[in-house]
């Protein structure tokens, strides 16, 4: 089971590397934001799988915090795109 968890972690990190391509290439700002959003979710899945691989329960708190900060990042960037400032 441990090898399976490590293999799925490697696969998901490969996917998150490929998703940078759209953030680099994408013609509109929405493409870049949605690509970074997909990468955030992939990193959450990687953190959760690693918490079972190392059997460290405290990594799950890191995943919750990462989800909150990713959502905050998306809201802030969209507000900046719509209004031109963060006020």
């Amino acid at each position, binding site marked *: *089971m441990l090898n*399976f968890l490590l293999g*799925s972690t490697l*696969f*998901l990190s490969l*996917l998150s590397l*490929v*998703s940078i*391509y*759209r953030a680099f290439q994408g013609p*509109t*700002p*929405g*493409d870049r*934001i*949605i*690509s970074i*959003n*997909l990468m955030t*979710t*992939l990193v*959450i*899945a990687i953190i*959760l*799988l690693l918490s*079972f691989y190392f059997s460290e*329960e405290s990594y*799950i*708190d890191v*995943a*919750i915090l990462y*989800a*909150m900060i*990713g*959502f905050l990042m*998306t*809201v802030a960037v*969209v507000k900046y*795109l*719509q209004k031109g400032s963060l006020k």
Partner: protein
Amino acid sequence: MITLIQEIVAGTLIVLGMFFFLVALLGLLRMPDVFSRIHTTTKGDTLGIGLIIVGLMVLSGFTALSLKLFVTLVLIWITTPTAAHLIAKSEYERDAS
């Protein structure tokens, strides 16, 4: 203790979740339009993380750990569609103007 049935069910769920992440990534790379890219990515994303977290909950059994995983799942299932809605709205307004 982790039994064999638990391992098989959890492994199947995690592999299904990785498949949906792969589909979301393919949609992000291959779709022609911004809105269709947002559509595909958000759906594959939400279902993939849901299946992976449910697989890990099966693996951990009925403990406080699985409750924490469930809280993570609820948080992600609320925030990801909201973020996609915000992005699509901003793109639509940018298109209209």
